[in-house]
């Protein structure tokens, strides 16, 4: 190991997306000296392509602790949004009216009910309310649903926000508090040293006391440099946005929501396409067709844009939070729900990083859980 040097910062956050900036904001609030090393505009940036749901229902089948973690973040989101507003003056348009998952046939509705029943029957499952609504009830809450809509699941904990404004507010907020932000700093190497880490990029190097990897799909490359593992892969999602319209949808739906500025987002496709983030007509057509079957009046709207972005996905779909056993002070944080979990990352995880230790409750999110299958 190379000799110790005076660190440039207490903690380096690798990645300036929603996860990295939420951590950086939370850490800097606690008085840590934070440096954020980000890529440039060419980065595969899930944080700029997401659907912006703050979502709880149906999460955690196979890992009830993830359901509890999601619920906790949803419960903390109002406070989180208020803190951001008070500090930066930016309203991230968080709303939690509850959310729906629409089913377009009786068969879909039965499958949905069975899935949620299995989820909530798990041992150690966190308790929260949800309902399966038949069509008659749904018509009152969501006027304009199409004749094929058989029903829906509803959970009062679900909500949404303006996620682009969230990213902006976190960046403004963390820098206002004193965090240093370095764009165009793709980290090429991380070298553990006495008392910290040396982060090397083409634009220069930085000494940090601690380091947290929040680089999304880039974590797969970075984690082994500090004795960690990040088995994540890109998973493509495509989204359509319509022209802005007057208030039409009072609730977010898993595949359709109206932004605070009026545009309707249609999304929630899932494809395995590697690092190909191009839009495909087949998927876009299917998304549009399902949206029109859900609300026939949408057929007359003009589409403004469509895009694809890459989720950061583990084999089981759950996050990874872990501290390196071989190089303490190096942490990894990765998930595909950077919006939903932003409140937890800023207000729960950041204090643990500041203290240098993850709480035992996060043990279940260690990447060690993936070792079982390779040994079998």
């Amino acid at each position, binding site marked *: 190991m190379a000799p110790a040097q005076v660190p440039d910062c207490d903690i380096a956050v690798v990645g300036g997306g929603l996860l990295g900036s939420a951590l950086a904001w939370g850490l800097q609030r606690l008085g840590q000296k934070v440096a954020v090393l980000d890529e440039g505009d060419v980065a595969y940036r899930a944080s700029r392509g997401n659907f912006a749901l703050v979502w709880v229902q149906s999460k955690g089948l196979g890992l009830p602790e993830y359901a509890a973690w999601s619920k906790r973040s949803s419960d903390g989101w109002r406070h989180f949004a208020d803190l951001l507003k008070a500090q930066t003056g930016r309203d991230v348009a968080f709303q939690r009216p509850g959310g729906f998952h629409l089913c377009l046939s009786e068969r879909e509705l039965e499958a949905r009910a069975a899935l949620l029943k299995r989820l909530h029957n798990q041992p150690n499952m966190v308790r929260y309310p949800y309902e399966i609504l038949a069509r008659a009830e749904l018509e009152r809450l969501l006027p*304009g649903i199409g004749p094929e809509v058989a029903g829906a699941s509803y959970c009062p904990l679900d909500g949404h926000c303006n996620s682009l404004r969230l990213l902006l507010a976190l960046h403004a907020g963390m820098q206002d508090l004193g965090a240093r932000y370095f764009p165009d700093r793709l980290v090429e190497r991380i070298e553990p040293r006495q008392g910290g880490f040396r982060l090397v990029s083409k634009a220069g190097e930085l000494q940090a006391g601690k380091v947290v990897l929040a680089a999304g799909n880039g974590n797969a490359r970075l984690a082994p440099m500090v004795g960690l593992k990040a088995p994540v892969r890109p998973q493509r999602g495509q989204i359509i946005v319509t*022209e*802005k*319209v*007057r208030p*039409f949808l009072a609730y977010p739906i898993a595949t359709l929501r109206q932004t605070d*500025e*009026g545009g309707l987002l249609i999304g929630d496709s899932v494809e395995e396409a590697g690092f190909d983030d191009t839009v495909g007509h087949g998927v876009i057509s299917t998304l549009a067709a399902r949206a029109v079957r859900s*609300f026939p*009046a*949408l057929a*007359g*709207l*003009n589409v403004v844009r469509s895009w694809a972005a890459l989720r950061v996905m583990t084999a089981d779909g759950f996050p990874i939070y872990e501290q390196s056993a071989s190089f303490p002070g190096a942490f990894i944080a990765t998930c595909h729900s950077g919006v939903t979990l932003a409140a937890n990352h800023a207000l729960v995880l950041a204090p643990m990083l500041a203290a240098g230790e993850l709480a035992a409750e996060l043990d279940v999110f260690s990447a060690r859980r993936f070792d079982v299958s390779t040994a079998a």
Partner: protein
Amino acid sequence: MFRRLPDAKRDTVSLTVDGNALTARAGDSVAAALLAAGVLVCRTSAVSETPRAPYCLMGVCFECLLAIDGRQNRQACLVQVADGMRIETQAGKREVGR
């Protein structure tokens, strides 16, 4: 503000703008007809609700949106006037179904 070229000799077309009668020339785009008649504001914008007028006149900028024959958010610069056409300037965002 705008004057027609003196040599433009075309048939006239009658339409209404917000209920008021307006005469245009056949072949005019709706945007050109409005500008020639001195109707400079076609709508207010979707978020800040500030006045907007036709701008690029070639289908690119989407500033000239208004309602034509009951359908909102149509591009006035890309639609030709027709006899009996009903034009309405638009306030803010479109409504779903209109």
